[in-house]
């Protein structure tokens, strides 16, 4: 792997870009909560239970988008071997894993109301199964870094598993169309948009907020990976100098 040419001194994790993201997200979160809980009307059949839609679906969108960014950074990392691409791959994988976990945790709670099951029941559904596979691949991509014999090998294996996770995303998206199941098809060509305009606006705002959160978390996680890399290199230099 190439040596990282970073700046000396403390990290720039409170740089202008991150500060703008921080402030925008801080303002946007209460707005999203207002839109989801107070502005959007109750759904006719599911009532208040439907409001989890404003968080569950944006979390899924962010997970899918995260998988695309993992794919791009993992391919860049495998071709250039540059540490900065590894930092991007690690950051996007970990943050996507967090959002995928939210999808898997909130799904059953919504399903309890919509499908009349119990929380904790695993109802077999192609969309649920393929999302669980996505979560396992992301988990594997993170764990393999700790288990690998060297940092470089871990980065390479993590990138490969990240690419596999990204390949799973179109399968998750198409699972209900291809194999049917309980999960509703939200977006498909020719499908009529049945959302109330207020629900649509609330959904749009919540989706934007989740993307802002994704950006903020990836920015922080990438900076953490960069600082950890520099700290490891500095510690190695110090131990080499101590020996010589």
């Amino acid at each position, binding site marked *: 792997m190439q040596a990282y040419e970073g700046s*000396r*001194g*403390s*990290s720039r*994790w409170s740089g202008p870009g991150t500060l703008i993201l921080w402030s925008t997200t801080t303002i946007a979160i209460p707005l999203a909560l207002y839109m989801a809980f107070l502005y959007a009307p109750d759904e006719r059949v*599911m*009532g*208040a*239970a439907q*409001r*989890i839609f404003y*968080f569950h679906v944006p*979390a899924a969108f962010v997970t899918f988008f995260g998988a695309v960014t993992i794919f791009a950074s993992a391919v860049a990392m495998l071709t250039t071997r540059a540490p900065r691409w590894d930092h991007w791959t690690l950051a996007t994988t970990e943050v996507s894993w*967090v959002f995928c*976990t*939210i999808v898997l*945790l*909130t799904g059953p*709670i*919504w399903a*309890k*109301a919509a499908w009349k099951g119990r*929380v904790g029941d695993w109802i077999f559904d192609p969309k649920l199964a393929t999302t669980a596979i996505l979560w396992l691949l992301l988990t594997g991509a993170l764990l393999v870094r700790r288990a690998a014999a060297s940092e470089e090998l871990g980065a390479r294996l993590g990138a490969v598993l990240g690419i596999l996770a990204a390949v799973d995303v179109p399968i998750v998206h198409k699972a209900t169309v291809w194999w049917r199941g309980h999960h509703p098809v939200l977006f498909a060509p020719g499908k009529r948009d049945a959302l109330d305009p207020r629900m649509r606006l609330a959904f749009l705002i919540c989706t934007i907020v989740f993307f802002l*959160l994704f950006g*903020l*978390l990836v920015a*922080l*996680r990438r*900076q*953490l990976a960069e*600082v*950890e890399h*520099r*700290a490891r290199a*500095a*510690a190695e*230099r*110090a131990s080499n*100098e101590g020996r010589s």
Partner: protein
Amino acid sequence: MTSYGALFWAYNLIWAVIAGYLLHLILRLRGVDRRLAALEREADRAQPER
């Protein structure tokens, strides 16, 4: 839908996961940042001696 208890936990769970992860990142970043600054100060002090 007879109880809103599950929903209450679902909505809180989302923000608890995000807030917990954010806090974890900030604390880790601060810790590593301090360690790096200490290592670099040490390296600067060691350099003039050689």
